[in-house]
């Protein structure tokens, strides 16, 4: 059964998330929560020569937040920090291939929020 929100690719990433796990040692790791629903994502990054050499994530959440983290980590592997910083809400939704209402948009953006905060912490 096909659903416009729960498309095959989202369910696939939810059931089999890419880069799921932890990295120890790593350059930086950071966790963010979505207090409304209890979703949590922790990102682990190894940064070398201003590029993401390796990335993993762990946590729990709905299909949207997990698929978005899975897709995002796939995307940023090997990318430069400058490129990553240009990511915005539109890119994430394009990556997921869906449009979302305001209630669920936070789920989709939790991984990006965690990534941005990680990079801020790393810079400091």
């Amino acid at each position, binding site marked *: *059964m096909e*659903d416009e*929100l*729960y498309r095959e690719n989202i*369910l696939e990433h939810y*059931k089999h998330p890419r880069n799921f796990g932890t990295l120890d040692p790593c350059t930086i790791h950071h966790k963010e929560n979505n207090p*409304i*629903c*209890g*979703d*949590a994502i922790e990102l682990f990054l190894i940064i070398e020569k201003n590029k993401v050499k390796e990335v993993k994530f762990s946590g*729990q*959440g*709905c*299909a*949207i937040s*997990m698929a978005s983290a899975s897709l995002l980590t796939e995307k940023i592997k090997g990318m430069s920090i400058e490129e990553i910083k240009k990511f915005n809400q539109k890119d994430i939704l394009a990556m997921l291939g869906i449009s979302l209402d305001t209630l*669920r948009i936070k*789920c989709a953006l939790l991984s990006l929020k965690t990534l941005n905060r990680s990079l801020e912490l790393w810079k400091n």
Partner: protein
Amino acid sequence: MKLPEKIRKDFSVLRQKVNNKPLIYLDNGASSLTPDCVIAAMDSYYKEYRSNVHRGLHSLSEKATIEYEKARQKVISFINAEEPEVIWTKGTTESINLLAYTFSKKLVKGDEILLTEMEHHSNLVPWQQVCKHCKIQYIKVTPEGYLDLNDFKKKLNKKTKIVSLTLMSNVLGTINDVKMITEEAHKVNALVIVDGAQGIPHLPIDVKVLDCDFLAFSGHKMLGPTGIGVLYGKKKHLQSLDPFLYGGDMISEVQFSHSFWNDLPWKFEAGTPQIAEAIGFGRAIEYLQSIGMKNIQEYEEEITKYALEKLQKIKGLKIQGPKDSKNRGSVFSFTIEGIHPHDLATILDREGIAVRAGNMCAMPLVTEVLKVGSVCRASFYCYNTFEEVDALVKALQKAQEIFHGR
């Protein structure tokens, strides 16, 4: 004729489609719907006698004061309290904050406060933050979702000054034996505060029978408007407590150096109150009484039994809380294997079904006791039908098809 058939016509809000499906409102634990008569009562305040209470020496203000105080009388008779024992607040949360702040001044180091593991944040965070000089203990919840009464007896002692607990869990649906707990607590001279936010809308309650010292509840969970609630307290306790908020209306005399407080209950009501909301709440209580709380309780027992039976047949579905329809309200928190509660809520919403997903403002219970990240919750009220239970079951099966295939 079942109860909903008689009353659904009174709720205009029910006559609508959500996502092209007839609305099935199962989020009553968060907030109930409001019948047209309640809206009309508030409307007539704004259209006919809009003015302040207890102040103006003019006809409109007199009418407003009469209607506002009449609403209070309705609450008093609804819970069988006495004249000065009912205070208007913003809601259950404010009622409990009022108690936590005023009691924090009376409690000393070494005093203990006994709560339960099934409390809503509103009956946990105020005590945790305001009474830091006291020891807070939590009565355990059994794996079946009931209060562990042995643990209660173990933790209740002479140092216990306050026992504060919910009448009905907003997650598990468990109805606690508050009368028995009050009897035990009084033996060690502890005061009992009851969070009635979930229980009062669904059960006939008599504070003289319960014998609790305080009872807090909210209008918006029992067909009334938002922004209005009640704190009931035994007169002798309310007299001995300091005011919580200061300002107009709560004083009898003010000098530059000091002030004297107004009589009960106005001592606790500073500033211009929620006049329309109080009047609306009064009308909601009248409406509930016209249905009869006993009838509501009986009908909800029936629908609880039906829903428990139907929901438990869904493969992979786990209900949190008692599986026996006795001493349990019609609130069902559940998880389905392999589907996050948020995704469930979204899929149900597309079928026109409103439920809640998350930690239900009872995060310690959900994450530390039940050990799940979040749950999906369907909570019923007197206007919900058996057909709506069937629709819920069907939509949950659809969610399973989406996630797991046929």
